[in-house]
Each structure stands twice: as structure tokens, then as C-alpha cells.
């Protein structure tokens, strides 16, 4: 098997290097799309390009007209922050943070070890999670089992999970009870030997 490993590991590295050629694109602000959506909702240019002081640069009409304030973006793109603009309901835009903040650093709570321990953070302060995430985000990773891209256990897991469970039973303990083994392997509804 050592010989097989010698082949598999370089193959794995080659796949990694190959995938490096594929990179995500960074969307630019699409003014035409925003203009069309606003017009559809009955909003004028002044809904974003307001007069008066604002923005992060020099205050005054010129600065505000050129670059709308960030809170105006969040009025349409952040859940729970929808406020009427000039008495007209705002447009509901995409709400994922990465829609706009493609190069922004991760939140301070997402420091080292966060991915492995984010359950602890969720128990500490779930309202902090809900500022950006929704219940569906939990479901997509932890409960949606039927897609080919399920992120916890892939398709091959069905055939090799016995090996993994005996190697590291504590990993199973985190989510599963012994009843979960029983339901497939020892009941009328079970479909496994």
C-alpha cells in the first residue's frame, strides 16, 4: 500500500495545483442594474445620490452625489435594515455579505480555529451569527443530505464510514447516537447489513 500512497499523494498535489488555475471573479458595482431595479420600485436617482453632507471623504454636495453612503447600500442589502426611502419601500437586494465585500477581512470573531469551533461561538451569542447568517446556512452544511455536494459526508461515505467510525468514534459522538447505527443496520426499515 505504501507504493499506492506514493502515487496518490503526488496525484493529489497535482489536482490541487491544477485547481489553482481557477479563481473566483470579483464583481464590480453594476450601476445599470441598480438603476433599473430602483426605477422599477419607483425610486429616483436622488434615493441614493442624496444632497447634503455624508460619505467618508470631504463633506458636501459633490462628495455625497458621487459616492452614496454605505448605510444606503445596507438599506437594501442587509436583512432587517430595510427602511423606506422618501416614503417608498426599498428594493430587496441580494443579502450575502460577499455580494459587495469581496475583499473585506473576515469578521473578528472568525479568527484562528473558528471553522472547527464555530459551534461554541453560536452557543455563546447566536444573535451575533444572525447579523450575517440565516437558519438556512446551518441547514445547508449540516442537514441537507441529498445533494452530490453535501459538505459533511460525501457519496463514498456510505461504504467506508465503518472504518472511520472505528478509527475515531468521538467524531461520530458529536452528532450521532447509537440509535443512528441501529436505524440502518438493525430495523425493518434498514437498508444495510
Amino acid at each position, binding site marked *: *500500500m505504501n507504493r499506492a*500512497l506514493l502515487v*496518490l499523494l503526488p*496525484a*493529489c498535489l497535482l*489536482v*490541487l495545483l*491544477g*485547481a489553482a488555475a*481557477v479563481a*473566483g*471573479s470579483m464583481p464590480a458595482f453594476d450601476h445599470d442594474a441598480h438603476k433599473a431595479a430602483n426605477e422599477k420600485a419607483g425610486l429616483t436617482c436622488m434615493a441614493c445620490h442624496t444632497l447634503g453632507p455624508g460619505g467618508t471623504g470631504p463633506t458636501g454636495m459633490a462628495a455625497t452625489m458621487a459616492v452614496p453612503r454605505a448605510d444606503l447600500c445596507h438599506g437594501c442589502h442587509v436583512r432587517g435594515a430595510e427602511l423606506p426611502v422618501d416614503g417608498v419601500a426599498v428594493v430587496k437586494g441580494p443579502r450575502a455579505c*460577499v455580494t459587495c465585500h469581496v*475583499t473585506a477581512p*473576515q*469578521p*473578528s470573531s472568525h*479568527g*484562528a*480555529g473558528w*471553522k472547527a*469551533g464555530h459551534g*461554541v461561538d453560536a*452557543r*455563546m451569542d447566536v444573535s451575533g451569527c444572525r447579523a450575517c447568517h*440565516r437558519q*438556512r446556512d446551518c*441547514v445547508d452544511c449540516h442537514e441537507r443530505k*441529498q*445533494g*452530490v*455536494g453535501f459538505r459533511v459526508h*460525501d*457519496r*463514498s461515505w*456510505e*461504504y*467506508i464510514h*465503518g*472504518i472511520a*467510525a*472505528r*478509527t*475515531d*468514534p*468521538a467524531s*461520530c*459522538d*458529536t452528532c*450521532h447516537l*447509537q*440509535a443512528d447505527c*441501529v*436505524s440502518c443496520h*438493525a*430495523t*425493518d*426499515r434498514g*437498508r444495510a*447489513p
Partner: protein
Amino acid sequence: MTSLYRCCPLSLGLLFGAPTAFAGEFELETIAQLRHDHFGDLYVPAWQLLRFQQDAGPVDLQGYAGIEWMAGVPAPLDPDIYHLSAAGDLAGGAWQVGRQRGAGALRPQTFDGVSYRRAIGDKLQAAASVGMARHQDVDDLLDFATMGRVELGWGGDALWLRGGFEMNEGGDTELIARQDLQGLLRLGSGPRAGRFGVRAVVAEPLQVDPGTVLEWARTDLAVRPWSPLELSVHAQHRQAADPESLLGDAILDALAGGVVQEAGAGARLLGARWSALSMRYAVVGYGEGNDWGYRADMAWQPGRSDAAVRISPAFSSRAGPGGQYHAVSSLLRWRASDATALSASLALVPYQKVEQPWATLFTGGLQLQQRVAGFAKLGAMVDVAADGAGLMDVRGGATLNLGWSS
């Protein structure tokens, strides 16, 4: 079949009625598949799932229900309500009533009951829950058990501690008490902040054959010495004995070693656009230390999660008392447009189970998702698993997701 007649109108009612009734988040997921079981027989499972959350008004409602139908088994219909609870505020605290998923010593517990959580000052938090937990018995019967838990948490800016005590009793099982302690220390602040965590759980039966049936402890440390680089180490101890109870924590006690020690290290290389290359390796010792195993994982997620094309390769390897495997896999996601996405997965897994010869498993799958309206998404998938021993498992299915949020 009578149940099916009752459930279909119920599903239709939920399908058309729920969006207007709930102003929060709502999802209806319908899945039908054609697949083989491990005995080579073809069967047709189908699931109807409903998830909703209404987070407005004085009382919030949340639910997660499912109906599973499976052709070719003695009891094809299995309706179940996983969660259905109401929550609100009372006397400065938060209450929840109904079937809910609450914190547990080792893992979240699903129970029918009531829970209450209240902050005491700025830093201290107390919680209590009581109810009836359900567990599936070896005879496919539901075994009911009463459960109670009290919990105390303290959270500062850098340090967070939680301690809990819970008891379970029911069916033909004895009274089991579990105590748990969890701590988290944030090292520094900002994205480069590290963290140090400890967690320990002890479980004991109180009536029959007293003694510890589970000891589980884990500690880990993660730091970012250089902005894109994250390093971590961990150690774990687990000692389990089966108290002959499904309420027990000794999952796989008959299969896995009763005493397991583990030590490992990991590294992640993070990109500016949320990409990550991660590696983890751990050595695992069993029993008195005469048997050894390992687990190793490596994965790369390049670019942003919503990039037009994303290929995520991974390598995973395990060796222990149950055998060994080395899995090379890759997942491709292609967003052809705002409405269309294609996913493809491939995996090659040489594996050897105990006292069996080596075999190589191949799995591959395709999934197409098409948004057909602002609230509706259709999906179609097909995948195959095959190995040199003659196994050929083809699976196909369709999914309909209806979702609303406001």
C-alpha cells in the same frame, strides 16, 4: 396507505397555505429518489420536508418537519416532526416551548418540553430545560426518556466558560447523569486572534452498576502567527463503556476501542477571498497503546464561495481497528448564470476493511439546479458508486425547493 391519504392533503395545505401564514423564513423541500440498497434491491425513497421560522412579533415560531416514504419496506411511511416550538421573552429571559433542540453535554438533545435562559448581569447566563427525549430502540420502537438540564455560563470579552449538569431516565434504562465543562479563551483580537479551548464530559449511571461510563476531554489551540497562516494542535481522550442503554454515549462500543487517545496538528492557508487550503493529521492510540491508527485530511477551497467556477479537491485517509482507506475527491461547482448551477463530484477510494482484501471504490455524481421562479428551485441529480467487487449502485432523483423569506 391511509396515512398517505392524510399526509398528502396536509402537504398540499402546507405548500399553499404556509407562505401566507408565516412572515419569516419558510422552505418546503420535496425529494424523490430511485436507488439501490446494500442488498442490491431497488427502492424508492421520498422525503417531504418543511422548515420555517417566524422571527417577528411577541412569540416566534420555528419548525422542521419531515415525512419519509419508502417503497418496498413493511412500514413505508414515517411521518415525523423534528422540531416545532414557540419562543418568546419573559421576565428578562427567553423561553421556548415544544419540540426543540437544546444544548447537551456531548451533543444537542431533541426533546419535547420547555427551556428558559436568562442573563444575570452583563456576564452571567443561566439556563434550564426539562422534557421528554425520544430515542429509537433496536426494535424500531421509540423509547421515551425524561431529561433535565441546568447550565451556567460566564462570558467576558476574551474568556467564556460553561458548565452543565443533566440527567436522563426512561424505558428500561437506568438513570444517567452527565456533567460537562467547556471553556474558550480568545488570544488577542481581530482576524489574527487565536483561541484556546477545553471541553470535558463525564457520564455516570446512578442506579445500576455505578461507575463512569464515559470520559471525554478535548483541548485545542489555534493561532495565526502570520495573517494568511493558521496553525492548530489538539489532544483528545475518550473512554467509553456501554451501559446497555440507547441513552448511553458508548456509540460503537462493540466495534471501536473503549479507550482512545488522540493528538494532532493542522494548518490552514487562507486567501484574501475566503479561500482556504487546510491540512490536518492526528495519531490515534487504542487501549493500552499497543494499537495505533491515524487520520489525515487535506482540502482546498479556492476563491470565493459564490465564484462562477469553483473546484474543491480533497484527500482523506484513515487507518485504525476497522481497516483503512485513502480517498481522493473533488467537487466542481459551476454557476452558469444567476438561475443555473451545476455540481459534479468525483472520488476514488482504495479501502480495506478488517480481514477483507483491498478494493477500490469509485463514486461520481452530477447535480443540476435551476431556479424557475423567485421562490422555486428545481434540482436533478444522478450519481453512481462502483467497485472492483461488482458493486454498482446507481442513484437518481429530483428535488423541488420552495422558499420564501421576508
